[in-house]
């Protein structure tokens, strides 16, 4: 019951359709890449999955909980790393995490223990007293991932989390999140960078507001390199 299910979800900004009958499932403990070119509807889908928007039709289940029927329980199962950094730059890393922990009802010694654990896992413990403003992009992202993991989410959503990072930082974060999936967390990783996806990962290809393909990266790419297959699919349906 730790997976993610999106069923027949549609969304429009006025007359512009952003998502049309989008359906897919991410089984528990799976790394699933939500692949799509810019403007495919990935960020809209993230806003629906985090209930920043409410879907007028369809159903979203986070770890078995319908986000409209049980929003509080559903959101408590969720960890999110947004595309835009959301750290308060004037607070220290620990203060940022404490604030977030409190928003999830964690406080006192329990919160401190959990913060230490999450920061340690991401090699950020020694930087916990530094102001977020002083951190480089990679470390800020690590802090955000540590923050997202504080409430021990069953489902982790990451919206293009490696944008703007150097190759080493990208590799480090991608590897770490793959490990999280192996340890039992369901991961939905939005990206348009195919080198972040491993052959055994699941894929949901979103293009022009619709799901164009689902399955493992291996089965999706077939004989071609994943990048070539992705371009072939998105160009073919664009023309």
């Amino acid at each position, binding site marked *: 019951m730790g997976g993610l299910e999106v069923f027949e979800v549609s969304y429009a*900004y006025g007359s512009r359709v952003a998502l049309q009958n989008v359906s897919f499932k991410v089984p528990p403990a799976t790394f699933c890449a939500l692949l799509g070119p810019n403007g495919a509807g990935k960020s809209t889908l993230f*806003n629906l999955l*985090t*209930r*920043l*928007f*409410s879907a007028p039709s369809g159903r979203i289940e986070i770890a078995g909980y319908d986000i409209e029927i049980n*929003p*509080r*329980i*559903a*959101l*408590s199962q*969720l960890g*999110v790393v*947004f595309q*835009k*950094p*959301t750290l*308060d730059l*004037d*607070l220290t890393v620990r*203060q940022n995490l*404490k*604030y*977030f922990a*409190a*928003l*999830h*009802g*964690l*406080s*006192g010694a329990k919160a401190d223990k959990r913060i230490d654990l999450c920061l340690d896992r991401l090699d950020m413990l020694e930087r916990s007293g530094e102001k977020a403003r002083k951190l480089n992009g990679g470390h800020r992202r690590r802090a955000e991932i540590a923050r997202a993991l504080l409430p021990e989410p069953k489902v982790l959503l990451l919206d293009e989390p490696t944008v703007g990072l150097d190759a080493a930082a990208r590799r480090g974060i991608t590897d770490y999140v793959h490990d999280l999936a192996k340890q039992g967390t369901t991961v939905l990783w939005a990206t348009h960078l195919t080198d972040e996806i491993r052959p055994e990962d699941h894929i949901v290809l979103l293009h022009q507001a619709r799901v164009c393909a689902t399955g493992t990266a291996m089965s999706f790419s077939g004989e071609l390199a994943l990048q070539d297959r992705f371009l072939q699919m998105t160009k073919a349906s664009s023309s």
Partner: protein
Amino acid sequence: MNPFVTSFQAIVYREALRFIQQRERFVAALVRPLLWLLVFAAGFRAALGLSIIPPYQTYITYEVYIVPGLCGMVMLFNGMQSSLSLVYDREMGSMKLLLTSPLPRWWLLFCKLMGATAISVAQVYAFLAITAAFGIVVPPLGYLLVLPALVVAGLMLGSLGLLLSGFVRQLENFAGIMNFVIFPMFFLSSALYPLWKMAESSEILHTICAVNPFTHAVELIRFALYGQLNVAALGWTLLATFAFMAIAIYSYNPNRTGIARRG
């Protein structure tokens, strides 16, 4: 600890921390009303005669009259400042963090509002301390009795700020809101002149002043400073608070796609 209490403490603490880090904001919040008190009031003292009106028991100087209005001014500007912070938070993305918390959205917004109100009240007390240093004092008990009035007024103006933040699309549009909300609200109120003075010059303006919720917030503060409860002012201020808060919470509803899009 209860997650509602934990989140309340965290949000209020963060608002306070943010305010402490913005020293210029604190200075501006105090300098603005002090300029009015020490410069504007000095010029107006001779021009404006005041009769004895409740809650005052005797003739008062103009400086004494405008202190409650300037307390309201501090709160009005602070309400708009917190609204500006909300729009900034939304543009920077940190609002998303707040709104994806598994707590009811109305509660999260209410915590934000309480944080803004706490800062507002602290600023008013700092202002009252400075006015006391200049010899403009109210009865000692007034400083205590005004606290609930300040909380109600702060909540009303904070709710207005919250409401505006739900409808203002971008940070750049905020200057217009300042001009179209702060100045009319302040000048069309009893902050600078009693309503009967306004009635002498224009009945229409007097009517507008009388329905302006800011007038009632100022009168609530004025009476409380002199140990009296203005029931009508309290009623109007509470009514405006609930109305603004309800619209503000609605404006942040995820079903309201226009707002959610900017979330």
